[in-house]
């Protein structure tokens, strides 16, 4: 059973229904006992980085989350659920993340992007350039389109965790893969056929 962690950072129904559509049972929960029992854990999230860390702490979810990561359970982070795995973010001042991976969360430079006529947030469909194979990308074509909506991106210290890159003014890391962890900046639950395939792959990942 897949546990989707609910910490009041956005609607999780699409994620849950996405899994159900591809034949995987998923529950939305913030109960540590259910998270401990789950075979797979998903950390979604939209909104502000600071609120994300605050809510995870307030709901007592940081330890269950760390536990499931260290137990080697398949883990999927989406959007903020990717960013929060890193050391710190520069969103509205500096915020500490979970520091599972070394690196920073940075904002697209408004001046630089504006010079190129690029708007922020990076909103819409863009391609993923696959840098390393992952079981989650099975049957997903190189250069597939996925849906993004974000103003911040991750800058990992360790290049070996980079799974896909995407270009928007600059080339940034759009997903990472390391051991039992896959986390992406884009939204598989909003990415139609390609996104559902990724969710299908995650549910089948052991």
């Amino acid at each position, binding site marked *: 059973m897949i546990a989707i962690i609910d910490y009041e950072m*956005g*609607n999780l*129904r*699409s994620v849950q*229904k*996405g899994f159900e*559509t591809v034949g995987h049972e998923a529950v939305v929960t913030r109960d540590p006992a259910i998270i401990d029992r789950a075979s797979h854990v998903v950390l979604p999230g*939209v*909104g*502000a980085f600071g609120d994300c860390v605050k809510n995870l702490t307030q709901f007592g979810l940081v330890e269950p989350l760390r536990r499931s990561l260290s137990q080697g359970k398949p883990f999927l982070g989406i959007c903020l659920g990717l960013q929060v795995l890193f050391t710190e973010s520069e969103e509205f001042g500096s915020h500490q993340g979970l520091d599972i991976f070394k690196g920073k969360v940075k904002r697209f430079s*408004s001046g630089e*992007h*504006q010079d190129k*006529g*690029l*708007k*922020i*947030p*990076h*909103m*819409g*469909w*863009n*391609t993923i350039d696959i840098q390393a194979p992952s079981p989650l990308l099975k049957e997903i*074509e190189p*250069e*597939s*389109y996925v*849906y*993004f*909506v*974000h*103003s911040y991106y991750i800058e990992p210290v360790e290049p070996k965790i980079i799974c896909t890159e995407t*270009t*928007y003014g600059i080339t940034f890391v759009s997903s990472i893969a390391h051991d039992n962890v896959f986390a992406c900046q884009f*939204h598989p*639950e*909003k*990415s*139609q*056929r*390609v*996104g*559902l395939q990724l969710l299908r792959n995650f549910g089948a990942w052991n």
Partner: protein
Amino acid sequence: MLTKRIIPCLDVKDGRVVKGVSFVNLRDAGDPVEVATFYDQAGADELCFLDITASHENRGILLDVVSHTAEQAFMPLTVGGGVRTLDDIRQLLNAGADKVSINTAAVQNPDFVTEAANRFGTQCIVVAVDAKQVTSPSENPPRWEIFTHGGRNPTGLDAIEWAKHMEAKGAGEILLTSMDQDGQQDGYDLPLTAAVSDAVSIPVIASGGAGTLEHLYDALATGKADAVLAASIFHFLTFSVAEAKTYLGSRGLPIRQVNGNE
């Protein structure tokens, strides 16, 4: 490369699609959920619901429609119409909307946009700007002002300045409708669209006036819009989403084609 977005828009009243949708292959073309699923499969990039229900008491019906849509269509959904309070936004997002469009409430209280962006994140706050040209066609440069209540109430606010103000207040996107062109099917207001696109550094969706595929191209190329919203041309199957995308791609715009390739 980030692609330009094609966004069909459905007017929804008391939970039913109005202004007619003439899909031959739908069981119930008045059911927004069924129409949304159709557009999802047709490869639309996003979907927009505009709720024109007069009474706020019927809000529950809209929330049901949004939640059923989010369960069946795995694409971004923007919902607008009658959004007045933070609670309205919270309910729509919890039902499954990805973005919420604010119009009159932003004009009445610009700080509402800031409160909403701080609470829910700037990426889900769209400000709908309804603009009408107030200079005569011979006057140069042209000027546009903001109208509320479906174009009936003038506000005296300059549209370009207003769009910049809304960006500063925390809007993540501008949904720009030309009240002059809306429903005319003879093209988007290109000078207005280009002026707003140049003035802000957030994405702009052009709306009002689509009648041909060339109109879509003009709004994206000349108007510099990031996305185009259209209703009738898609609902009446004048053109399919796939035809529009093939055309726009052939004109050299970055477009996500329906088969998944650029």
